[in-house]
């Protein structure tokens, strides 16, 4: 079976999971249904032959599940009552999306074939990556050698985010002690 069939199967499974997460009453079941979406992304990375991304996605799904269970399960939560305005809004949204799909359908013919990118950079990395950097894992050779500057930015973003979280939350938890 071609990869596209599997991907469509996983994607529809993810859509069902997110709808279940939105509609279900029990908060723990909703959190687990959100987990289905992330694990679907991880599976589709495996089908697209990107094990590095699949590992990271899988681990982060577990991490997010821990945080969400810790944060939400014992708390009361506000449930929105279904109202008439909501139904009208959902109808307007669906009609708008269908209109956008109708008017942009012709662009689908212009897209390149699946697995045939327009850019030639990736081919250069595949040909010369191992001899340029000496790393057997091409993904690592790209993120830590060719694109190490991007990784530095990523580290800075993580550092700033954790600094902010530590500063704000530490003050708050100290004042409640």
């Amino acid at each position: 079976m071609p990869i596209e069939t599997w991907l469509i199967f996983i994607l529809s499974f993810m859509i069902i999971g997110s709808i279940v997460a939105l509609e279900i009453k029990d908060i723990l079941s909703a959190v687990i249904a959100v987990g289905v979406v992330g694990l679907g992304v991880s599976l589709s990375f495996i089908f697209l032959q990107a094990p590095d991304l699949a590992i990271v996605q899988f681990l982060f799904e577990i991490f997010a599940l821990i945080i969400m269970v810790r944060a939400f399960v014992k708390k009361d939560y506000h449930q929105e009552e279904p109202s008439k305005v909501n139904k009208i809004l959902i109808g307007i949204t669906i009609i708008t999306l269908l209109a956008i799909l109708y008017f942009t359908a012709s662009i689908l013919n212009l897209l390149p074939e699946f697995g045939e990118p327009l850019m030639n950079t990736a081919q250069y990395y595949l040909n010369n990556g191992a001899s340029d950097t000496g790393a057997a894992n091409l993904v690592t050779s790209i993120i830590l050698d060719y694109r190490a500057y991007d990784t530095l930015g990523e580290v800075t973003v993580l550092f700033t985010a954790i600094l902010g979280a530590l500063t704000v939350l530490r003050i708050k938890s100290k004042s409640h002690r």
Partner: protein
Amino acid sequence: MDNNSGMTIIVKTITRITVPIIILYGCYIIFHGHLTPGGGFAGGVIIALALLNVMIAFGREFTNNWLNINFLEKLESISATLFLVLGILGFLIGTTFLLNFISKGELFRLLSAGTIPVLNIIIGIKVAMSLFLVVWVLAGLKLDEGESL
């Protein structure tokens, strides 16, 4: 050790056995980042999850005594600085920022690929410490009744 905090004795015993193995696996993923799938980011998350496992099983107070949280915070900042220092070293020794200035070595060997394993280790420490610290701080947050965050 206070036996009342945290989860049951079954969970504690299993955690005591599995956490060292999980940390070892995380170190393997980090050190082999330039040879097999994975790398600093994935290995760091594995180590952070192992430490979180201890925190969930034994409770926050036990983890506070077991780990030196202040040291972990310093380790996190130091690793971020080391990444920058390595980049500037590439500028000083060679020509460009973050240049791969150590000898490349032989393909498929553990000690190869120049600065890539070093950067992997730095990123692994950074990710592990920061992700663990965020959940550690969040777990210590207690809200008063009726107060919203």
